[in-house]
């Protein structure tokens, strides 16, 4: 009964065609099958946001998505945001503002910030705080993360 099914989707701008078990969560599929371990598994219940990825331009908790559900979709993980040679402006701002402490929430925070700025390039401080409401951080107190996002927003014209 447990037969793999074929899914096709766009992952970090690359076309992927792969077989996956139907009961595979997207988070496990990304980390264990595709070795994309930037996405973190925290609570597994949609409370912490550490597993945030972007599906068709909107953030989602990848622990609450079945891998087959991304068939035909576009998925962006933290690996698709930037790399060591060319960081995204948000990643650079997180470094510059000291917005990373233990780093566990950072991939999710960055992707939430990315969708915020894609939809709303000049958010208010209040909008920035709200955009983080699905991502728990236990180290920073959020202030430096908000500062980093604000810095990138201020550079947007």
């Amino acid at each position, binding site marked *: 009964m447990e037969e793999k099914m074929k899914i096709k989707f766009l992952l970090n701008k690359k076309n992927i065609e792969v077989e996956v078990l*139907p*009961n595979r969560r997207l988070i496990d599929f990304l980390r264990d099958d595709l070795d994309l371990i930037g996405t973190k598994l925290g609570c597994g219940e*949609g409370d912490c946001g550490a597993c945030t990825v972007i599906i068709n331009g909107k953030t989602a908790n990848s622990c*609450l998505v079945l891998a087959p559900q991304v068939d035909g979709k576009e998925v962006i993980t933290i690996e698709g945001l930037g790399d060591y040679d060319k960081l995204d402006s948000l990643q650079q701002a997180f470094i510059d503002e000291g917005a990373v402490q233990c780093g566990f929430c950072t991939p999710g925070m960055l992707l939430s910030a990315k969708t915020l700025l894609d939809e709303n390039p000049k958010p208010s401080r209040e909008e920035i705080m709200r955009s983080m*409401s699905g991502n728990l951080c236990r180290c920073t107190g959020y202030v430096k993360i908000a500062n980093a996002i604000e810095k990138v927003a201020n550079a947007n014209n």
Partner: protein
Amino acid sequence: MSQFIYKKPKQLQEAFSIMKENPAYSIIAGGTDLMVKMKDNRITAKVIIDVSELNDLREIKEKQGTIYLGAAVTHTEICKSELLRGFAPALVHASGLVGSPQIRNRGTVGGNIGNASPAADTIPALMAYGAEIVLASAEGVRSLALEDFFVGPGRTVISPGEVILSIEFNKLQATQAVSFEKLGKRKALAISVVNAAAFLEIDKTKAVVTKARLALGSVAAKPIRVSAAEEALIGYSLSDDKIKEVAKIVSDSITPIDDVRSEALYRKRIAGVLTQRTLIDAWKQLV
């Protein structure tokens, strides 16, 4: 997670055939509730049917004064809908307070209802709008008042082979208003300790209430209306004394429990407070 087959029908009829052939099915749309239950093996379906992209469940439209809201519309889509922002702002407010941005991007209104949590935020709001729920099966459709859909926590009157198709309610008139309020343990990503919604219709010349609906969540085994409190409003203007009287009726007639989020005694008090706040807000929209 147990093993299952994943099916994503393209048409509603196809979904009905899959349900008929596989009685041990579960429906998934956003998955924000179902995935948690499947992870803990509280649901062990043999077939998971994904209805998230069925066109019949995806529409938001208005027809002759009735708003039609497809079951697979997400909370984010509710919040962005010009139609709903204009004609159902209290529903938009409630959907905007569900979970987190990530949850709202995937969680659907039909899922919020079908999951039948007594604390679901969209349910009291929709009950205040006087919403009906439309259920579809291979045999046809049936609709019932939303408050008649729930049996208890996680339990509804939905039959095997039925899906939630839509939620329908009338556009508000100039003499009508709805207000929704929620209290959680924190401002973001909190399941409601208590939530409440009030609908008022007034006679503008006399400034008295002609019709009222008061709906509350997380104060009983299912979302409820408090008819004694509704009746106490009819024919009256909303004086301070009247608001207090109605809030007391609400507090006295609900039967909340102690649980991880709060205590019965606190819930009784807060239900009264939220009743006052929603009544005042709805009244201010009208006079």
